[in-house]
């Protein structure tokens, strides 16, 4: 496993370096800059120039890039141009919120997706299978901005049992935090849970149709043991890869869900940073997201290799 990991690391680092250059360049190609954004619509040229000089935007582009990479290496991300505060603090706060939301959504994906998959593959009741099919189709078809609004209307406005938005950090008050977390996490998780459920159902059905299952059934193995010890482990590897990919989708989807539920995570931070051309915040954030994707992919491959030894021997 260690050798496998070492083989994968250089390409991961190369991806990060390439991404950093692309992010820096593309951001500079977007019209507008932090100075004009900060100067406001009533500014004169002197104001814009003074702000540009203060932010170091009058320096050559290559030196700005080198300065950025240097700051990343030393771990001092510096101050935000427009939003205010230190970039590291902003990203740290947002990362905590997004991680909380993504983790809760992932939990929903595993629980709901697992239930959809196992029940869909094993239930003898046509009614249950149809209900699961309809639920997963609806969960896939309805985009989060619609399901989010529907959930808020039902639970927050009509029933008044859950807050419509906002966040209480989990470590401070877990009971309140869970209530704030419930709707956005569910909204974010639904499409991924449906995808996962369908994959799992197909995987279990395929595994249950294998010859060795028939042999084991004939030998009198308990159905529960057949499912948990044989069918499920064999159906899992592709589902784990899918779960890794879905984690990426959850992070991406969090941007939209965070807006609907006023969740102060990285999505909101990215939107704020981009609209104000806050280069340090946006650059660091995008690079962080690339890094997260690379790490998730690496972890997924490692888990896959662990589950299927053929992969690590290749």
């Amino acid at each position, binding site marked *: 496993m260690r050798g496998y990991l070492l083989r994968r690391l250089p390409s991961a680092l190369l991806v990060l370096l390439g991404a950093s250059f692309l992010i820096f360049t593309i951001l500079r190609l977007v019209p507008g800059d932090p100075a004009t954004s900060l100067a406001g619509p009533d500014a004169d040229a002197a104001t814009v120039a003074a702000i540009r000089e203060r932010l170091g935007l009058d320096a050559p582009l290559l030196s700005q890039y080198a300065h950025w990479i240097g700051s990343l290496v030393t771990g001092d991300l510096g101050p935000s141009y427009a939003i205010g*505060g230190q970039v590291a*603090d902003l990203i740290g706060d947002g990362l905590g919120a997004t991680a909380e939301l993504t983790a809760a959504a992932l939990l929903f994906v595993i629980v709901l997706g697992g239930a959809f998959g196992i*029940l869909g593959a094993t239930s003898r009741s046509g009614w249950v299978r149809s209900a699961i099919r309809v639920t997963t189709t609806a969960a896939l078809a309805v985009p989060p901005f619609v399901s989010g609004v529907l959930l808020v209307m039902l639970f927050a406005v009509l029933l008044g049992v859950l807050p419509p938005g906002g966040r209480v950090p989990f470590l401070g008050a877990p009971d309140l935090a869970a209530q704030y977390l419930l709707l956005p996490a569910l909204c974010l998780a639904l499409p991924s849970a449906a995808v996962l459920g369908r994959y799992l159902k197909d995987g279990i059905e395929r595994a249950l149709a294998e010859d060795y299952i028939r042999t084991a059934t004939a030998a009198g193995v308990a159905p529960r043991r057949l499912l948990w010890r044989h069918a499920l482990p064999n159906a899992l590897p592709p589902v784990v890869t899918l779960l890794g990919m879905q984690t990426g989708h959850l992070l991406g989807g969090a941007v939209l869900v965070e807006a609907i539920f006023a969740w102060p995570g990285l999505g909101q931070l990215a939107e704020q940073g981009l*609209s104000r051309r806050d280069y340090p915040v946006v650059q660091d954030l995008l690079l962080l997201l690339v890094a997260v994707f690379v790490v998730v992919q690496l972890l997924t491959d490692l888990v896959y290799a662990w589950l299927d030894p053929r992969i690590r021997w290749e």
Partner: protein
Amino acid sequence: MTELYPSPSPSPSSGLSRRSTLLAGGGSALLLGLGLTGCRSAVSESASAPQETGAAPKRGGILNLAINADFTPALLFAQSGQSLQQRLIYNTLTRYDDSLTPKPELATSWTYAKDGRSITLKLRDDVTFHDGRPFTADDVIFAVKNLQNPVRAAQLRSTAATINGFEKRGDHELVLKLAHPVNNLFDLFEFMIITDEKTVEDAVTGKKLIGTGPFRLKKWSPGSGLSLTRNDSYWLPDRPYLDGVELRVIPQADALISSLRSGQSQLSFGVPGKSLSVIKSDPKLKITNYDTGAGAIYLGVNTTVAPLNDKTVRQALAWAIDRDRLLAQTLGGYGLASAAPWPKSSPAFSEAHRTHYTHNPGKARELLRSAGHSKLELPLLHIALPGDTAIAESIQYDLKQIGVHVTLEPTDGATAQKKLISQEMPALWTMGHGFAQVQPSTLAVSAYPFNEAKNTSKYRSAAYTKVVQEAWTKPGTSAAGANALHEKISGILLDEAFIIDLVVRGQVQVNADRLHGVALNKFSYLNLDNAYLA
């Protein structure tokens, strides 16, 4: 991988469903129930009620204010879309009443020199900053010098820059000397927040906001909002009534409305005009339309692009727009259809100017023909947000009726702002402007689209410069004289039509019916000195 097992059993699917259902269902229910069965309810926690009951006004309670954009510390000294917290943490020297007469705040009285070249201010002597330091004349001197710094991007910098001398007469009396007389000094006094010099650099990064206002900063969480707590040493006796204010960022309009309707927020100024009908039907919410504050929607014209360099063509565009329909369809009827920039509270307002251009496509076509055109193709830049897009589409429809085919150029806010400042706008653009709600001269010296020396329309005229400078630098002018100057400014704006005003917008406040005593100053700084939750 083969194992041998002792006894046969039914098919793999049999017997699993009920157990699996219970397991899976139980797990989901556990997760779902985690919040619902929590020992406290997040819903009731957020609807904080005052602790005392009795005769109004009541003390206590936390006000939750829903805002659609977060506090931007770098814009602390500028007026922006989110200036609500300014007057909660800080004070200003004076504030206007409804008739634009200045009233005391940190300045108790003032005397203008006869030549208009200095003003003597007497200041309150019982005011302390949040850190306990007493407020003195030095703080006013710092506040003025601070606004003169271009890095602060304060829109009223040109007015602050006219103050070129300070004469302290003790700790609480100060003479401000002016390079030349100006008639919008009280606009500056209402705009300029009094900050603590020692911590000002921390203030513009959001670390520490120290003022003399009714609330202290407890915490700013970027992206989440501001948490303010009552200033127990506030100079106004027994105020504020509220224990604190939470400014919560809710950027999405539907989420913001849900927050108000569910009682999680009790106040907001961020509900889009088109969504106000939802609020109107809710008996627990109230809508208040302020005459002042936000500004106006306009159609900007680049006067260097042919054939828009001909004012007849510009006037044709001004006649073509159906302002009433624009108001009804895009702003939910909240605002004032007007060809001139002034709100009703402005001394420059006149009904004749407001209705100078009405919807008259026949006249517009005739003017276009007289200028030698029957069909035109022009680009129109607008900000790519739903409300702004609807306005641009409405303009596009009206102009099409007179043969002017407009191509929409949706642009993000930062780019539009850059193009506005650097005079790179295409032939037409639509945006909003402010600063018509105070002294009329401020519009022409502080609102960039109208600036006589340099504006996005690239409109220059000696007559316009002369009248604007005269209106700005003659504080001693009689009411009749001032009116005559305002009349001239409006006349030029309407005749030259380089900025075609469409709708004057005020701030629209939505609040829970149990919230009372909310006020805004002319720059949309929220004043909660007298606010309470019943």
